[in-house]
Protein backbone atom coordinates (compact mmCIF):
# COMPACT_ATOMS: atom_id res chain seq x y z
CA UNK A 1 0.00 0.00 0.00
CA UNK A 2 1.27 3.48 -0.88
CA UNK A 3 1.86 5.35 2.35
CA UNK A 4 2.41 8.66 0.50
CA UNK A 5 -1.26 9.05 -0.16
CA UNK A 6 -2.11 8.77 3.52
CA UNK A 7 0.73 10.89 4.86
CA UNK A 8 -0.40 14.03 6.61
CA UNK A 9 -4.01 12.98 6.82
CA UNK A 10 -5.86 13.48 10.10
CA UNK A 11 -7.71 10.60 11.67
CA UNK A 12 -9.97 10.38 14.69
CA UNK A 13 -9.78 7.07 16.49
CA UNK A 14 -12.60 6.20 18.83
CA UNK A 15 -11.49 3.64 21.40
CA UNK A 16 -7.75 3.88 21.73
CA UNK A 17 -6.89 2.52 25.13
CA UNK A 18 -6.81 -1.21 24.52
CA UNK A 19 -4.33 -3.46 22.70
CA UNK A 20 -6.11 -3.08 19.37
CA UNK A 21 -6.49 0.68 19.65
CA UNK A 22 -2.86 1.12 20.66
CA UNK A 23 -1.80 -0.96 17.68
CA UNK A 24 -3.89 1.19 15.37
CA UNK A 25 -2.30 4.35 16.75
CA UNK A 26 1.15 2.89 16.17
CA UNK A 27 0.21 1.92 12.65
CA UNK A 28 -1.32 5.29 11.82
CA UNK A 29 1.82 7.04 13.02
CA UNK A 30 3.98 4.72 10.92
CA UNK A 31 1.84 5.62 7.91
CA UNK A 32 2.33 9.33 8.57
CA UNK A 33 -1.28 9.83 9.61
CA UNK A 34 -1.94 12.15 12.55
CA UNK A 35 -4.28 10.51 15.07
CA UNK A 36 -6.65 12.31 17.40
CA UNK A 37 -8.03 10.09 20.11
CA UNK A 38 -11.48 9.87 21.62
CA UNK A 39 -12.03 7.64 24.59
CA UNK A 40 -14.72 7.01 27.11
CA UNK A 41 -14.23 9.15 30.20
CA UNK A 42 -11.73 7.56 32.54
CA UNK A 43 -10.03 5.53 29.83
CA UNK A 44 -7.64 8.12 28.50
CA UNK A 45 -4.28 6.98 27.23
CA UNK A 46 -1.06 8.48 28.52
CA UNK A 47 0.12 9.18 24.99
CA UNK A 48 1.21 12.63 23.99
CA UNK A 49 -1.42 12.96 21.27
CA UNK A 50 -4.53 15.12 20.88
CA UNK A 51 -7.09 13.41 23.07
CA UNK A 52 -10.70 13.96 24.11
CA UNK A 53 -13.10 12.05 26.30
CA UNK A 54 -16.81 11.30 25.97
CA UNK A 55 -19.57 10.01 28.22
CA UNK A 56 -21.60 7.17 26.65
CA UNK A 57 -25.11 8.32 25.83
CA UNK A 58 -24.22 12.00 26.17
CA UNK A 59 -24.34 13.49 22.69
CA UNK A 60 -22.88 16.83 23.78
CA UNK A 61 -19.63 15.23 24.88
CA UNK A 62 -19.25 13.50 21.51
CA UNK A 63 -19.89 16.75 19.65
CA UNK A 64 -17.44 18.62 21.84
CA UNK A 65 -14.76 15.96 21.35
CA UNK A 66 -15.11 15.89 17.56
CA UNK A 67 -15.32 19.68 17.28
CA UNK A 68 -12.24 20.15 19.47
CA UNK A 69 -10.19 17.70 17.44
CA UNK A 70 -11.41 19.21 14.21
CA UNK A 71 -10.43 22.68 15.41
CA UNK A 72 -7.03 21.38 16.46
CA UNK A 73 -6.35 19.64 13.15
CA UNK A 74 -8.17 22.12 10.90
CA UNK A 75 -9.78 19.21 9.07
CA UNK A 76 -10.60 15.58 9.72
CA UNK A 77 -10.06 13.07 6.94
CA UNK A 78 -10.72 9.71 8.56
CA UNK A 79 -12.64 8.15 11.39
CA UNK A 80 -11.84 4.73 12.82
CA UNK A 81 -14.33 3.27 15.26
CA UNK A 82 -12.70 0.70 17.49
CA UNK A 83 -14.63 -0.49 20.52
CA UNK A 84 -13.23 -1.49 23.90
CA UNK A 85 -13.03 -5.21 23.67
CA UNK A 86 -12.68 -5.94 27.35
CA UNK A 87 -16.15 -4.62 28.05
CA UNK A 88 -18.03 -7.59 26.70
CA UNK A 89 -20.18 -9.24 29.27
CA UNK A 90 -21.08 -12.82 29.90
CA UNK A 91 -24.64 -14.03 29.94
CA UNK A 92 -25.62 -16.33 32.77
CA UNK A 93 -28.70 -18.32 32.10
CA UNK A 94 -29.74 -18.30 35.75
CA UNK A 95 -29.30 -14.54 35.88
CA UNK A 96 -30.41 -13.03 32.59
CA UNK A 97 -29.42 -9.51 33.49
CA UNK A 98 -31.13 -7.08 31.15
CA UNK A 99 -29.09 -4.12 32.38
CA UNK A 100 -25.97 -5.65 30.87
CA UNK A 101 -27.53 -5.37 27.46
CA UNK A 102 -28.36 -1.69 28.02
CA UNK A 103 -24.77 -1.10 29.01
CA UNK A 104 -23.20 -2.74 25.99
CA UNK A 105 -25.73 -1.14 23.62
CA UNK A 106 -25.01 2.31 24.98
CA UNK A 107 -21.24 1.95 25.10
CA UNK A 108 -20.84 0.25 21.74
CA UNK A 109 -23.76 0.69 19.34
CA UNK A 110 -24.85 4.13 20.53
CA UNK A 111 -21.28 5.42 20.74
CA UNK A 112 -20.61 4.40 17.14
CA UNK A 113 -23.81 6.19 16.12
CA UNK A 114 -22.89 9.34 18.05
CA UNK A 115 -19.38 9.40 16.61
CA UNK A 116 -20.84 9.12 13.10
CA UNK A 117 -23.54 11.67 13.76
CA UNK A 118 -21.15 14.27 15.12
CA UNK A 119 -18.43 13.80 12.53
CA UNK A 120 -20.76 13.68 9.51
CA UNK A 121 -21.20 17.48 9.26
CA UNK A 122 -17.40 17.89 9.10
CA UNK A 123 -17.06 15.30 6.35
CA UNK A 124 -20.06 16.64 4.43
CA UNK A 125 -18.67 20.17 4.57
CA UNK A 126 -15.43 18.94 3.01
CA UNK A 127 -17.17 16.45 0.75
CA UNK A 128 -14.56 13.98 1.85
CA UNK A 129 -14.23 11.38 4.55
CA UNK A 130 -13.42 7.74 5.04
CA UNK A 131 -14.76 5.71 7.90
CA UNK A 132 -13.77 2.29 9.17
CA UNK A 133 -16.11 0.43 11.51
CA UNK A 134 -14.17 -2.14 13.51
CA UNK A 135 -16.47 -4.88 14.64
CA UNK A 136 -16.23 -8.46 15.81
CA UNK A 137 -17.16 -11.58 13.93
CA UNK A 138 -19.60 -12.51 16.70
CA UNK A 139 -22.57 -11.19 14.75
CA UNK A 140 -21.80 -13.60 11.93
CA UNK A 141 -20.65 -16.60 13.88
CA UNK A 142 -22.85 -16.46 16.95
CA UNK A 143 -19.76 -17.01 19.03
CA UNK A 144 -19.59 -14.20 21.54
CA UNK A 145 -16.17 -13.51 22.92
CA UNK A 146 -17.08 -13.73 26.59
CA UNK A 147 -14.07 -12.70 28.64
CA UNK A 148 -11.54 -13.33 25.95
CA UNK A 149 -12.32 -16.90 25.05
CA UNK A 150 -13.42 -17.99 21.61
CA UNK A 151 -16.22 -20.33 22.58
CA UNK A 152 -17.38 -20.84 26.12
CA UNK A 153 -20.70 -21.91 27.50
CA UNK A 154 -23.02 -18.95 28.00
CA UNK A 155 -20.65 -16.51 26.40
CA UNK A 156 -21.80 -13.09 25.38
CA UNK A 157 -25.19 -13.02 23.76
CA UNK A 158 -24.91 -9.27 24.14
CA UNK A 159 -21.88 -9.11 21.91
CA UNK A 160 -23.52 -11.17 19.17
CA UNK A 161 -26.60 -8.93 19.10
CA UNK A 162 -24.59 -5.70 19.27
CA UNK A 163 -22.09 -6.84 16.66
CA UNK A 164 -24.71 -7.65 14.05
CA UNK A 165 -26.62 -4.47 14.97
CA UNK A 166 -23.49 -2.48 14.18
CA UNK A 167 -23.25 -4.19 10.81
CA UNK A 168 -26.83 -3.16 10.03
CA UNK A 169 -26.30 0.37 11.24
CA UNK A 170 -23.12 0.70 9.20
CA UNK A 171 -24.92 -0.50 6.08
CA UNK A 172 -27.63 2.12 6.52
CA UNK A 173 -25.16 4.91 7.25
CA UNK A 174 -22.86 3.97 4.37
CA UNK A 175 -25.72 4.13 1.88
CA UNK A 176 -26.93 7.47 3.17
CA UNK A 177 -23.58 9.19 3.02
CA UNK A 178 -21.77 7.77 -0.01
CA UNK A 179 -23.38 10.27 -2.42
CA UNK A 180 -21.56 13.01 -0.49
CA UNK A 181 -18.15 11.56 -1.23
CA UNK A 182 -17.82 9.78 2.10
CA UNK A 183 -17.04 6.09 2.21
CA UNK A 184 -18.00 3.88 5.12
CA UNK A 185 -16.78 0.29 5.34
CA UNK A 186 -15.89 -2.21 8.00
CA UNK A 187 -13.54 -4.83 9.35
CA UNK A 188 -14.73 -7.77 11.42
CA UNK A 189 -12.17 -9.45 13.61
CA UNK A 190 -11.99 -12.54 15.79
CA UNK A 191 -11.46 -12.59 19.56
CA UNK A 192 -7.76 -13.44 19.39
CA UNK A 193 -7.24 -10.62 16.93
CA UNK A 194 -3.69 -9.85 18.06
CA UNK A 195 -2.54 -12.74 15.87
CA UNK A 196 -4.05 -10.91 12.89
CA UNK A 197 -2.65 -7.46 13.50
CA UNK A 198 -0.81 -7.27 10.20
CA UNK A 199 -3.92 -8.20 8.26
CA UNK A 200 -6.03 -5.76 10.26
CA UNK A 201 -3.55 -2.99 9.46
CA UNK A 202 -3.66 -3.92 5.78
CA UNK A 203 -7.45 -3.78 5.83
CA UNK A 204 -7.39 -0.37 7.52
CA UNK A 205 -4.96 0.87 4.87
CA UNK A 206 -7.19 -0.46 2.13
CA UNK A 207 -10.30 1.34 3.37
CA UNK A 208 -8.43 4.58 4.11
CA UNK A 209 -6.44 4.62 0.91
CA UNK A 210 -9.36 5.39 -1.35
CA UNK A 211 -8.64 2.52 -3.72
CA UNK A 212 -12.05 1.10 -2.90
CA UNK A 213 -14.20 4.17 -2.33
CA UNK A 214 -16.62 2.59 -4.79
CA UNK A 215 -17.37 0.05 -2.07
CA UNK A 216 -20.19 0.95 0.23
CA UNK A 217 -20.87 -0.67 3.59
CA UNK A 218 -18.66 -3.65 2.88
CA UNK A 219 -16.90 -5.68 5.53
CA UNK A 220 -13.55 -7.42 5.38
CA UNK A 221 -13.70 -10.42 7.68
CA UNK A 222 -10.38 -11.37 9.21
CA UNK A 223 -10.15 -14.83 10.77
Amino acid sequence: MESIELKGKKCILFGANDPLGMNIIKHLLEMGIEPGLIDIDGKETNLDLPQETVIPGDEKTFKRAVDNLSAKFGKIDFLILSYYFEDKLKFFIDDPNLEKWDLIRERWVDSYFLCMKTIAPHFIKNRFGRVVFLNTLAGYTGEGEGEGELIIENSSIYECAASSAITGMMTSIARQIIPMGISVNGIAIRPNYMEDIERINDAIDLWLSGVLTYSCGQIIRIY
Partner: protein
Amino acid sequence: MKKTMDKKTLNGKVALVTGGGGGIGKAVCKKLASIGVFVYVNDVSDSAKKVVEEINKERESKMAYFVRYDISDRKAVEEMFKEIKSQHNGVDILINNAAVYGPSCRFYEMSYNDFVKTICVDLSGAVYCTLLALPHMIQNKWGRIIFTAAPMSSSGIPAPYLAGKAGFIGLAKYISKKFKDVYTFGLALRHVDTPLIRKAMESRGKNVEEAIKELNSKSLTGRMITPEEVAEIYGYFLTSLWKSLDGTVILADGGITYLR
Protein backbone atom coordinates in the same frame (compact mmCIF):
# COMPACT_ATOMS: atom_id res chain seq x y z
CA MET B 1 -27.65 -33.13 16.56
CA LYS B 2 -30.78 -31.38 17.71
CA LYS B 3 -33.94 -33.36 18.17
CA THR B 4 -36.72 -32.78 15.72
CA MET B 5 -40.33 -32.37 16.68
CA ASP B 6 -43.76 -33.52 15.73
CA LYS B 7 -46.66 -31.23 14.92
CA LYS B 8 -48.68 -32.55 17.82
CA THR B 9 -46.20 -31.28 20.35
CA LEU B 10 -47.24 -27.66 19.76
CA ASN B 11 -50.59 -28.30 21.36
CA GLY B 12 -50.63 -26.55 24.72
CA LYS B 13 -47.39 -24.66 24.15
CA VAL B 14 -47.26 -21.02 25.19
CA ALA B 15 -46.27 -18.27 22.79
CA LEU B 16 -45.51 -14.61 23.21
CA VAL B 17 -45.93 -12.46 20.12
CA THR B 18 -44.63 -8.91 20.39
CA GLY B 19 -46.36 -6.34 18.23
CA GLY B 20 -49.31 -8.69 18.00
CA GLY B 21 -51.94 -6.00 17.55
CA GLY B 22 -51.90 -5.83 13.78
CA GLY B 23 -50.36 -6.86 10.48
CA ILE B 24 -47.91 -9.74 10.75
CA GLY B 25 -48.29 -10.03 14.52
CA LYS B 26 -52.04 -10.44 14.33
CA ALA B 27 -51.83 -13.05 11.58
CA VAL B 28 -49.18 -14.98 13.52
CA CYS B 29 -51.26 -14.93 16.71
CA LYS B 30 -54.24 -16.33 14.83
CA LYS B 31 -52.12 -18.99 13.18
CA LEU B 32 -50.61 -20.09 16.48
CA ALA B 33 -53.97 -20.28 18.20
CA SER B 34 -55.28 -22.34 15.29
CA ILE B 35 -52.65 -25.01 15.99
CA GLY B 36 -53.39 -25.20 19.69
CA VAL B 37 -50.90 -22.72 21.08
CA PHE B 38 -51.80 -20.38 23.95
CA VAL B 39 -50.89 -16.92 22.73
CA TYR B 40 -49.87 -13.87 24.73
CA VAL B 41 -50.53 -10.94 22.43
CA ASN B 42 -48.25 -8.06 23.28
CA ASP B 43 -48.69 -4.52 22.08
CA VAL B 44 -48.91 -1.02 23.46
CA SER B 45 -52.18 -0.34 21.69
CA ASP B 46 -55.72 -1.57 22.25
CA SER B 47 -55.66 -3.28 18.87
CA ALA B 48 -54.07 -6.28 20.56
CA LYS B 49 -57.07 -6.52 22.87
CA LYS B 50 -59.30 -6.86 19.82
CA VAL B 51 -57.04 -9.57 18.42
CA VAL B 52 -57.35 -11.46 21.69
CA GLU B 53 -61.14 -11.13 21.65
CA GLU B 54 -61.29 -12.31 18.03
CA ILE B 55 -59.13 -15.34 18.69
CA ASN B 56 -60.99 -16.40 21.82
CA LYS B 57 -64.30 -16.02 19.99
CA GLU B 58 -63.09 -17.97 16.96
CA ARG B 59 -61.51 -20.76 19.05
CA GLU B 60 -64.42 -20.79 21.50
CA SER B 61 -61.97 -21.03 24.38
CA LYS B 62 -59.42 -18.85 26.11
CA MET B 63 -56.43 -19.30 23.86
CA ALA B 64 -55.24 -15.68 23.79
CA TYR B 65 -54.22 -13.18 26.46
CA PHE B 66 -53.57 -9.47 26.14
CA VAL B 67 -50.30 -8.27 27.64
CA ARG B 68 -50.06 -4.54 27.27
CA TYR B 69 -46.44 -3.69 28.03
CA ASP B 70 -43.90 -1.47 26.36
CA ILE B 71 -41.10 -3.83 25.35
CA SER B 72 -38.57 -1.02 25.07
CA ASP B 73 -38.81 -0.68 28.86
CA ARG B 74 -36.90 -3.48 30.55
CA LYS B 75 -38.85 -3.21 33.80
CA ALA B 76 -42.10 -3.51 31.85
CA VAL B 77 -40.77 -6.62 30.10
CA GLU B 78 -39.86 -8.14 33.46
CA GLU B 79 -43.41 -7.43 34.65
CA MET B 80 -44.85 -8.99 31.49
CA PHE B 81 -42.89 -12.21 32.04
CA LYS B 82 -44.02 -12.30 35.68
CA GLU B 83 -47.61 -12.04 34.50
CA ILE B 84 -47.15 -14.83 31.96
CA LYS B 85 -45.43 -17.00 34.56
CA SER B 86 -48.30 -16.49 36.98
CA GLN B 87 -50.70 -18.02 34.44
CA HIS B 88 -48.48 -20.41 32.54
CA ASN B 89 -45.01 -21.66 33.40
CA GLY B 90 -43.21 -19.60 30.85
CA VAL B 91 -42.82 -18.88 27.16
CA ASP B 92 -42.10 -21.80 24.83
CA ILE B 93 -42.39 -19.88 21.58
CA LEU B 94 -41.23 -16.31 21.26
CA ILE B 95 -42.04 -14.26 18.18
CA ASN B 96 -39.91 -11.11 18.20
CA ASN B 97 -42.05 -9.10 15.84
CA ALA B 98 -42.62 -5.63 17.31
CA ALA B 99 -40.87 -2.78 15.54
CA VAL B 100 -41.04 0.91 14.88
CA TYR B 101 -39.54 2.43 11.77
CA GLY B 102 -38.28 5.58 13.44
CA PRO B 103 -37.90 8.95 11.83
CA SER B 104 -37.31 8.87 8.08
CA CYS B 105 -34.36 11.23 8.11
CA ARG B 106 -30.65 10.93 7.55
CA PHE B 107 -28.69 9.64 10.51
CA TYR B 108 -26.90 12.93 11.07
CA GLU B 109 -30.23 14.77 11.28
CA MET B 110 -31.70 12.26 13.70
CA SER B 111 -31.82 13.16 17.38
CA TYR B 112 -30.07 10.76 19.69
CA ASN B 113 -33.34 10.45 21.57
CA ASP B 114 -35.08 9.18 18.42
CA PHE B 115 -32.22 6.80 17.76
CA VAL B 116 -32.51 5.33 21.25
CA LYS B 117 -36.31 5.14 21.13
CA THR B 118 -36.20 3.22 17.86
CA ILE B 119 -33.40 0.81 18.69
CA CYS B 120 -34.92 0.12 22.11
CA VAL B 121 -38.17 -1.09 20.55
CA ASP B 122 -36.57 -2.84 17.59
CA LEU B 123 -33.62 -4.52 19.27
CA SER B 124 -33.57 -4.05 23.04
CA GLY B 125 -37.17 -5.24 23.26
CA ALA B 126 -36.23 -8.45 21.45
CA VAL B 127 -33.11 -8.89 23.56
CA TYR B 128 -35.07 -8.44 26.81
CA CYS B 129 -37.78 -10.89 25.75
CA THR B 130 -35.23 -13.41 24.50
CA LEU B 131 -33.16 -13.25 27.68
CA LEU B 132 -36.22 -13.75 29.86
CA ALA B 133 -37.69 -16.49 27.70
CA LEU B 134 -34.50 -18.53 27.43
CA PRO B 135 -34.22 -19.92 30.99
CA HIS B 136 -37.64 -21.61 30.74
CA MET B 137 -36.87 -22.94 27.26
CA ILE B 138 -33.52 -24.35 28.37
CA GLN B 139 -34.97 -25.85 31.52
CA ASN B 140 -37.76 -27.49 29.51
CA LYS B 141 -35.37 -28.54 26.77
CA TRP B 142 -37.70 -27.04 24.19
CA GLY B 143 -37.93 -23.56 22.75
CA ARG B 144 -38.51 -21.72 19.48
CA ILE B 145 -37.64 -18.13 18.76
CA ILE B 146 -38.61 -16.39 15.54
CA PHE B 147 -37.44 -12.97 14.44
CA THR B 148 -39.22 -10.70 11.97
CA ALA B 149 -36.11 -9.21 10.37
CA ALA B 150 -35.35 -6.94 7.39
CA PRO B 151 -32.99 -7.16 4.43
CA MET B 152 -29.57 -5.67 5.07
CA SER B 153 -29.37 -4.55 1.47
CA SER B 154 -32.21 -2.06 1.74
CA SER B 155 -31.50 1.53 0.83
CA GLY B 156 -32.88 4.51 2.70
CA ILE B 157 -33.78 2.59 5.82
CA PRO B 158 -33.15 4.49 9.06
CA ALA B 159 -29.96 3.47 10.86
CA PRO B 160 -31.53 2.42 14.20
CA TYR B 161 -34.23 0.36 12.45
CA LEU B 162 -31.70 -1.53 10.36
CA ALA B 163 -29.40 -1.87 13.37
CA GLY B 164 -32.25 -3.42 15.30
CA LYS B 165 -33.24 -5.82 12.57
CA ALA B 166 -29.64 -6.79 11.87
CA GLY B 167 -29.12 -7.45 15.56
CA PHE B 168 -31.47 -10.42 15.18
CA ILE B 169 -28.90 -12.20 13.05
CA GLY B 170 -26.38 -12.32 15.89
CA LEU B 171 -29.05 -13.26 18.41
CA ALA B 172 -30.39 -16.07 16.24
CA LYS B 173 -26.94 -17.48 15.58
CA TYR B 174 -25.81 -17.27 19.18
CA ILE B 175 -28.87 -19.08 20.54
CA SER B 176 -28.72 -21.67 17.80
CA LYS B 177 -25.12 -22.47 18.63
CA LYS B 178 -25.25 -22.32 22.40
CA PHE B 179 -28.56 -23.92 23.29
CA LYS B 180 -29.21 -27.18 21.56
CA ASP B 181 -32.88 -27.40 22.47
CA VAL B 182 -33.80 -23.91 21.35
CA TYR B 183 -34.33 -23.33 17.64
CA THR B 184 -34.19 -19.90 16.06
CA PHE B 185 -35.29 -18.65 12.70
CA GLY B 186 -35.63 -15.26 11.07
CA LEU B 187 -37.40 -13.93 8.03
CA ALA B 188 -36.03 -10.77 6.44
CA LEU B 189 -38.99 -9.02 4.90
CA ARG B 190 -39.04 -5.92 2.77
CA HIS B 191 -42.58 -4.90 1.84
CA VAL B 192 -45.48 -6.52 3.61
CA ASP B 193 -49.04 -5.64 2.66
CA THR B 194 -50.24 -4.47 6.06
CA PRO B 195 -52.74 -1.80 7.09
CA LEU B 196 -49.73 0.05 8.54
CA ILE B 197 -47.96 0.38 5.20
CA ARG B 198 -51.18 1.61 3.56
CA LYS B 199 -51.71 4.10 6.37
CA ALA B 200 -48.11 5.32 6.00
CA MET B 201 -48.70 5.92 2.29
CA GLU B 202 -51.86 7.82 3.04
CA SER B 203 -50.14 9.98 5.63
CA ARG B 204 -47.50 10.89 3.05
CA GLY B 205 -50.27 12.10 0.74
CA LYS B 206 -49.82 9.23 -1.70
CA ASN B 207 -52.52 7.55 -3.70
CA VAL B 208 -52.50 4.21 -1.90
CA GLU B 209 -53.43 2.03 -4.86
CA GLU B 210 -50.82 3.66 -7.10
CA ALA B 211 -48.19 3.43 -4.39
CA ILE B 212 -49.02 -0.25 -3.86
CA LYS B 213 -48.77 -0.80 -7.61
CA GLU B 214 -45.35 0.83 -7.62
CA LEU B 215 -44.14 -1.32 -4.75
CA ASN B 216 -45.50 -4.43 -6.44
CA SER B 217 -43.67 -3.55 -9.63
CA LYS B 218 -40.38 -3.60 -7.72
CA SER B 219 -40.92 -7.21 -6.79
CA LEU B 220 -40.13 -9.99 -9.26
CA THR B 221 -43.24 -11.70 -7.98
CA GLY B 222 -45.29 -8.63 -8.88
CA ARG B 223 -46.80 -8.39 -5.43
CA MET B 224 -46.06 -7.83 -1.77
CA ILE B 225 -46.03 -10.63 0.75
CA THR B 226 -49.08 -10.74 3.00
CA PRO B 227 -49.15 -11.11 6.80
CA GLU B 228 -51.02 -14.39 6.38
CA GLU B 229 -48.20 -15.76 4.22
CA VAL B 230 -45.68 -14.75 6.83
CA ALA B 231 -47.78 -16.47 9.49
CA GLU B 232 -47.83 -19.63 7.36
CA ILE B 233 -44.04 -19.54 7.05
CA TYR B 234 -43.67 -19.13 10.82
CA GLY B 235 -46.15 -21.92 11.36
CA TYR B 236 -44.22 -24.12 8.97
CA PHE B 237 -40.97 -23.48 10.79
CA LEU B 238 -42.58 -24.25 14.11
CA THR B 239 -44.33 -27.42 13.03
CA SER B 240 -41.98 -28.91 10.46
CA LEU B 241 -38.87 -30.99 10.81
CA TRP B 242 -36.86 -28.12 9.42
CA LYS B 243 -33.92 -28.45 11.76
CA SER B 244 -31.36 -27.53 9.14
CA LEU B 245 -32.68 -23.97 9.14
CA ASP B 246 -31.91 -23.45 12.81
CA GLY B 247 -30.08 -20.17 13.31
CA THR B 248 -30.70 -18.83 9.85
CA VAL B 249 -32.31 -15.62 8.68
CA ILE B 250 -33.87 -16.01 5.25
CA LEU B 251 -34.44 -13.17 2.84
CA ALA B 252 -38.01 -12.99 1.57
CA ASP B 253 -38.24 -9.87 -0.54
CA GLY B 254 -39.82 -11.07 -3.76
CA GLY B 255 -36.48 -10.87 -5.53
CA ILE B 256 -36.16 -7.09 -5.15
CA THR B 257 -32.53 -7.42 -4.17
CA TYR B 258 -31.64 -8.80 -7.56
CA LEU B 259 -33.27 -5.92 -9.37
CA ARG B 260 -30.93 -3.36 -7.84
